[in-house]
C-alpha cells in the first residue's frame, strides 16, 4: 500500500473519476436512500450556514446587527442591501483601507506564487535530471523541511534582514519583498517535492535524446521539462496562491509597522478595536474570501491535486 505515499504519486490526469462508479463496492451499512440523503443534506446545510451567514451579515445594515439575527433576513429579504460594500469601496485607495489591503495582498501573493513555481521547477529539474552526486541526500533534506514550522525561522530571519540592511542599506523587514522572500522559502519544500514527483514520471530518454543532439540544460528545461510539467505547476501555483493569500502570521511579522497591510491583517486589526464594526469585519471577510473562491471554482481539479499531493504539509 505504499501507493498512497505522496512521494510515489505523480500528479497525473485522473484515470478513473470517482463519480463514474455509481454502485459503491466500499461496503459499510446500506441505509435506505432516503435516510442517507437526509443526513447528507443536513450536513451540507450545516456546512453552508457559516458562509451564508457571513454573506448575509455583510449585506445587512450595521444597525440591524444587534437587533435581530442574520437569519431573519431569510424571511425578510428587504433587509439586504449593498450599502456596506459601497461604503467600503467608496473610500477608495485610502491607506489601511480594504482596497489598499486587497492590493497589498495581491502584491505579496502574486510574486510569491510565481517565484515558488519557477524556483521549484528549476530545483526539481536539477534533482531529477541532473547527474551530480548527492542529489538524493538533498532531496531527503527537502522532504525533511516539508513540515518544519515557520516559527523556527521567524526571529533569525528578522535578524538576517537587519544585518542585510546594515550591510547594503536595504532592510527587507517591514517591506513587501521581506514578506515575499519568507513565503518563497517556506513554499519551496512543498513545491520542489511536488515538481520532483512529477518530473520523476517523465521518461529520462526524452531528455537524453535532447542531450545527445547537443541541447543545453536550459533548452531542455524550457522545451521538455517546463511544458510537460505544466499540470503540476498549475496545481502548485493555485495551492501556493491560496496559501499565501490566507496567511496572517508571516505578514503580521514581516510587514512590521508598514501602513499598507494585507486583508488578513485588515480583518485582524478590525477585531482588535474596542468597538468592533461588524459591517466592516463581515464585508472585509467576504472580500477576502472572494478571490480564493474564484480560484477554487475555476481550477478546482488542480487545487484538489495540489491538496492531495500536499497531504504532508
Amino acid at each position, binding site marked *: 500500500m505504499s501507493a498512497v505515499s505522496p512521494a510515489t504519486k505523480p500528479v497525473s490526469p485522473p484515470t478513473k473519476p470517482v463519480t463514474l462508479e455509481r454502485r459503491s463496492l466500499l461496503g*459499510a451499512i446500506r441505509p435506505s436512500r432516503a435516510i442517507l440523503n437526509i443526513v447528507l443534506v443536513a450536513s451540507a446545510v450545516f456546512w453552508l450556514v457559516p458562509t451564508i451567514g457571513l454573506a448575509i451579515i455583510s449585506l445587512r445594515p450595521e444597525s440591524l446587527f444587534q437587533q435581530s439575527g442574520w437569519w431573519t433576513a431569510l424571511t425578510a429579504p428587504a433587509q439586504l442591501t449593498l450599502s456596506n460594500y459601497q461604503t467600503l469601496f467608496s473610500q477608495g485607495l485610502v491607506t489601511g483601507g480594504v482596497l489598499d489591503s486587497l492590493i497589498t495582498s495581491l502584491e505579496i501573493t502574486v510574486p510569491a506564487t510565481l517565484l515558488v513555481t519557477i524556483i521549484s521547477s528549476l530545483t526539481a529539474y536539477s534533482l531529477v535530471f541532473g547527474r551530480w552526486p548527492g542529489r538524493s541526500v538533498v532531496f531527503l533534506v527537502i522532504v525533511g523541511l516539508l513540515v518544519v514550522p515557520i516559527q523556527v525561522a521567524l526571529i533569525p530571519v528578522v535578524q538576517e534582514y537587519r544585518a542585510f540592511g546594515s550591510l547594503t542599506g536595504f532592510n527587507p523587514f517591514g517591506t513587501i519583498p521581506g514578506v515575499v522572500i519568507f513565503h518563497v522559502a517556506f513554499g519551496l519544500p512543498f513545491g520542489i517535492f511536488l515538481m520532483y514527483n512529477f518530473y520523476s514520471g517523465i521518461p529520462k530518454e526524452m531528455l537524453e535524446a535532447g542531450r545527445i543532439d547537443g541541447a543545453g540544460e536550459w533548452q531542455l528545461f524550457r522545451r521538455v521539462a517546463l511544458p510537460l510539467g505544466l499540470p503540476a505547476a498549475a496545481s502548485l501555483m493555485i495551492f501556493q496562491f491560496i496559501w499565501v493569500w490566507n496567511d496572517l502570521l508571516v505578514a503580521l511579522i514581516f510587514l512590521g509597522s508598514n501602513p499598507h497591510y494585507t486583508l488578513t491583517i485588515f480583518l485582524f486589526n478590525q477585531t482588535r478595536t474596542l468597538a468592533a464594526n461588524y459591517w466592516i469585519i463581515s464585508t472585509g471577510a467576504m472580500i477576502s474570501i472572494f478571490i480564493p473562491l474564484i480560484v477554487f471554482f475555476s481550477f478546482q481539479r488542480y487545487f484538489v491535486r495540489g491538496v492531495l499531493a500536499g497531504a504532508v504539509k
Partner: protein
Amino acid sequence: MAEIGTEATPRARRRAAAVNEGGNPGGGWRDHLGSLAFLAPGAIFLLAITVYPLVATARNSFYDATATNYVGLGNYQEIFSTSSILVTFRNNVIWVLVFPFLVTFIGLVYGVLSERIRWSTAFKTIIFMPIVFSATASALVWRTIFDLDPHIGIVNAAIQTASDWVSPPGLYPVDTSSGQTVAGLAATGVSSAPKDSLESSSTVTAGNSIELGLIGVSPATLQLTGSQTAVVPTQSPGAVTGLVWRDFSPTNPTAKGQVLPDELGFAGLKLTLLRSDGSSAGTAVTDAHGDFLFGGVGSGDYKVQIDPGNFSSGFTGVFWLGAQSLTPTSSLNQTAQALLSVPLVDISMILAYLWIWAGFAMVVIGAGLASLDREVLEAARLDGAGEWQTFRRMTMPMLAPVLIVVIVTMLINVLKIFDIILNMAPGSSQGEANTLALAMYNFGFTGLGNWGLASALAVILFILVIPAIVLNLRRIRG
C-alpha cells in the same frame, strides 16, 4: 477527485534509472555546473531562510530576551515552571488528541457516504469549500456563530428557541447574571420563599384583601406588560382579594408601604393561593391594575404566592467562547489547573476547525477509496461477506495507510495552530486558549519581546514535529 494511489510506476522507473546510472558518473563537478546552476536559487533560499534560521533559533533559545547573553537552560526552565505557558502545552495536547481523529472520522464517513448519492460532486464541493478561506475569516465567522447574544449568535438563538418552547420566560424576567435576585424584589408585605418565588409575609382569610409591594422592576418592563395605575383592592365575601403593585412613587420616592396615585400595578402576574400546609387552594392572574381575586375560598389562613415562573428569564445564552473549564479543577492548585482544565472555547474552536478541514480529510480519503482494488472487494462480496463485514475486514485495512496520512497531516497542522486562536478566542479567554505557536508569536513579537523564550518555544515546536519528519523520510525511502 481520484488521485492518490495510482501504482508506483514512476518510482520503479526512477529506481531503474538509478541503477542504470550506476552511482557517480565520472567527470567531476565541472560537468555538473549546468545542473547546479538550476539548483542554486532554491538552495540559496532554503539555506538562508530555513536551514540557517533553524540553527540560529536553537542558539537563540539559550540566550536572553535580546539574544545577546548566554543563559543556558534558563528559558526552558521558565517555560516549564510558568503555569500560563504550561497552559499552551495542555491546549496543544487537547487539539492533538481530539482534532486529528475527529476530522479523519468525519472525512471517512462523508467519503464513504457521498459515494452513494447522485449529487456527490455538489456535496463534496460544499464540504470542501471552506478550505480556501483564511483561518482569519473563518474564525470571525465562527465567532459570530457562537456569540453570547441570541440576537447575534445562531447557536444560542437555536437553544433559546427550543428553551422558550419548553419553559417560556416570565413577564418580569430577573437577570441573575447581572446580580439581580428575585428576593431583592420584595418590598412591602412580601418575603422571599423557596425556589425563587415570593410569598405574602402575613396570612389572609376569606373576605379580606392583601397588598403586596414590589420594587426593582423598570417602568419599561411594566409598560411592556400593559400595567396601569394601581387600584386599592376591594374586599369580597368568600374570596381573597388583593393587589400587587410597584411600591415606588417617582414624585414621592421615600414613601413606602402605601398605594399612591402615581404607582403602577403589576399586570399578568401568576399567583397561587397557598393553604397553611403549603398546598394550592387556587390560582389567579392579576388584571391591568395589579388586582387579583381568588373566589370560593373556605375558612382558614392562607398565603398568596407570586409564582417563580413570573421572574424566569428563560435562556439567555451560553458563552461558548469562554474559558470556563469542562473538567472540575477548581479545587486544584494553579499548576494542576493549568494542566488539567479543558476550557469550553477549545471545543468551540475545534468545531470551527473541523468545518475548515473536514473537506480535506474527505477528499484524501475519497481518493484512497477510489483507488482500492474493487475486484478484491467484489470477491469478498461474492464469498458472502455482508456490506459491514466487507467494510471492516477489507476496506478499512486497505484504507489504513491513507487514514494515517490524514491523521499525521492534521496532527502537524494542529501542533502549529495559530490564526484560529488569535482571531476566534475573545480577549477574556485568549490566555486560556493559548497554544505553543501563539505563545511563540506573543513572546517574540508583541509587547517588549523575549526572543530567548520565544526561540525556546519554537525549538520545542520543532522537536514535536521531528517524529513527522522521520515518518515522511521513511515513507519516501520506503
